[in-house]
C-alpha cells in the first residue's frame, strides 16, 4: 500500500522568517522602546526653545552643535527629541485605534460572512452606506464636532476604517464557511457560534493580522495628516505631522526639520505593512 505511511515532503518545508519580518519588527521595537523611555533617552527637552540655537544643522554638517544630533527647528527645539516624543502619540494612536477598529470590523465581518441571512443583509448595507462617505471630509467633520484631541482622532479612525476589516473578513469567512470541514463540524453537533469561533476564526486570523498591521500604519498616517492640518492634539506636544507642517515653512533654510520626521513616518508605516505580510508568511498554516 504505497500511499499509507507517507507523511510526504510537505512537512519538511519550513520557511525562513525572512529579512523583512526582522527588519520591520526591529524598527518597530526600536521605536516602541524609544517611545516608552522618551523622557529618559531623549537627549533634550522636546519643548525647550532657544532662539540662539535655531536651525542648527544635523551633526555631520558644518555648524552643528554637539548634542543636537539631527539639528534644531526655527525655535531651537531639538529635532531628534521631538521625533522620539512624537513616537508616543503615533504609536499610541496606532495601537489603540488599530485594535479597536480591528475588533469591531472583524467581528461584524465574521458574523455577516458566516451567519449570512438577515445579519449579513444589515451589516452589508451598513458597509455600503458607510463607504459612500468621503473619508477625509468625514474625519474632519467628526473632529470638528468632537473637538480636537487624541480621543477624537482614535474615534475618527475607528468610525471610518472598520469597514475595511468588515469587508475583507466577511468575504474570507464566507469562503471558509463553504468548506467541508464546517459541514462536518455542524453534523457533529457544534452550534453556529461555536463553529464560527473554533473552525472559521483560526483560518481568518492570518488575514486579520495583516489587516491589523496595515491599519496601524494607516492610523499613523491619519494622525500625521490631522496633526498637519492642526486638528490633532495641542500644538505644544510634538507630533510627526505637526513637525512636518512646521518644517514645511522653512524647507529652504532647514530641510532637516521636515525630512527627518518624514523619514521616520515613512519607515514606520512601511514596517507595519511589512510586519503583517511577514507574519502571515510565517504563521499561516496553509502557506507554512
Amino acid at each position, binding site marked *: 500500500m504505497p*500511499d499509507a505511511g507517507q507523511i510526504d515532503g510537505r512537512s519538511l518545508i519550513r520557511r525562513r522568517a525572512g529579512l523583512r519580518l526582522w527588519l520591520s519588527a526591529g524598527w518597530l521595537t526600536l521605536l516602541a522602546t524609544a517611545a516608552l523611555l522618551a523622557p529618559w533617552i531623549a537627549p533634550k527637552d522636546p519643548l525647550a526653545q532657544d532662539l540662539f540655537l535655531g536651525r542648527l544643522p544635523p551633526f555631520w554638517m558644518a555648524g552643528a552643535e554637539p548634542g543636537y544630533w539631527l539639528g534644531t527647528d526655527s525655535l531651537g527645539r531639538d529635532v531628534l527629541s521631538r521625533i522620539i516624543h512624537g513616537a508616543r502619540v503615533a504609536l499610541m494612536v496606532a495601537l489603540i485605534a488599530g485594535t479597536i477598529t480591528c475588533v469591531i470590523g472583524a467581528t461584524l465581518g465574521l458574523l455577516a460572512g458566516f451567519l449570512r441571512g438577515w445579519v449579513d443583509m444589515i451589516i452589508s448595507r451598513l458597509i455600503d452606506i458607510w463607504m459612500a462617505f468621503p473619508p477625509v471630509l468625514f474625519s474632519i467633520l467628526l473632529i470638528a464636532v468632537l473637538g480636537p484631541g487624541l480621543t477624537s482622532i482614535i474615534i475618527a479612525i475607528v468610525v471610518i476604517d472598520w469597514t475595511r476589516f468588515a469587508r475583507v473578513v466577511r468575504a474570507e469567512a464566507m469562503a471558509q464557511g463553504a468548506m467541508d470541514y464546517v459541514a462536518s463540524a455542524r453534523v457533529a*453537533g457544534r*452550534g453556529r457560534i461555536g463553529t464560527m469561533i473554533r473552525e472559521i476564526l483560526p*483560518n481568518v486570523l492570518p488575514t486579520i493580522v495583516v489587516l491589523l498591521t496595515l491599519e496601524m500604519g494607516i492610523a499613523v498616517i491619519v494622525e500625521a495628516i490631522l496633526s498637519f492640518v492642526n486638528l490633532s492634539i495641542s500644538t505644544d506636544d510634538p507630533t510627526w505631522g505637526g513637525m512636518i507642517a512646521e518644517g514645511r515653512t522653512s524647507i529652504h533654510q532647514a530641510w532637516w526639520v521636515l525630512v527627518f520626521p518624514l523619514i521616520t513616518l515613512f519607515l514606520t508605516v512601511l514596517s507595519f505593512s511589512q510586519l503583517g505580510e511577514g507574519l502571515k508568511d510565517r504563521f499561516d498554516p496553509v502557506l507554512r
Partner: protein
Amino acid sequence: MSFLSIRNLSVRLKKGPPLLRRVSLDVQAGEVRGLVGESGAGKSMIGKAVLGILPPSVEITGGEILLDGTDLLRLPPKDRRRRIGASCALIPQDPLTALNPSHRIGPQITDRLVDILGWSRSTAESRARDLLAEVQIPEPDRVLRAYPHELSGGMRQRILIASAFAAEPRLIVADEPTTALDVTVQKQILKLIAGMQARHGTALLFVTHDLGVVSKVCQNLSVLYSGMVVEDSAVTDFFAAPRHPYSRALLAATPKYTDPAAGLTPVPDEVIAAVRAEVAAFDAGGIA
C-alpha cells in the same frame, strides 16, 4: 423498521424551481444504499437534508425525514442537531477542504467527542489512535500531531473515514468519498469504507455517480433524475435487469474498460425526453 426513512421529501431553491420532488427512500440499520444520478440530480442534496446542512439558499417544502422513528423536521433546531450529532456522521467529498487547516489532526477527531458527546479526553485520544490504526495509518501518534497540509489526499481521506466512525454512528452519509482521489487510491479507500462498514454494522448512504462503485459496495440503490427517484432496487436486480428506461440507459453508458475501442455511449435523447416528460407530468400534478 428502517433506521432512516425519507418520506416524500421536497426541497426547492427559495422562490425557485424544485430540487427534490417527493423523494422517498429507506435505509435499514446496517444497510448500504447507493444514491446515483447525474450531476444536479439532487443526490448530495438528500444527504445534506438528512444531516441538516442544506445551504441557506434552499428550503424544505414538505415531507418527513424519520431518523429511528422521529421526524427530524419537526424537532426544534437544537434537538435536531443533537440527535443528528449523536447518531450520524459525514464522509465528505473533498479531503482537501474537509479538514480544518488550522488545527492538528488529533484535536479535529477528539474535540467533538469531548466537547459535544462528553467523552473524557483520554478515552477520546485512545479511540482516535485505535481508529487511525484501523484505517491502516502507520505511526498514528505522529499523524495525530500533524497538520492536514502535511498529509497526502489519500491519508486525509483515511482520517476522515476514521473520524466519521469515531462516535459509532448508526448512519454515515458518504458524499462521493472517492471522487476527488486518484483512481489508484480510490480502490483502497472503497475497500476501507466497505470493511469499516461491515465491522461496525453502520448504515451507509453512499452518494456517487459511479455505478461501478455501487456494484462493489451497495446492497440497494436509488436512481435519481432531476430530483425524482426513478428506480429503487436491490443492486443485484438492478444490474441484472434495470426497470426504468433511464436506469437502463445509464447502465449502458458506463464505459467498458475492457473494450476501449467501443467509445462512449451517451444516454439516448429519447430516454432523456421521456424522463423529462415524467418530471413535467409530476410538476403538473400540482404536488410540489
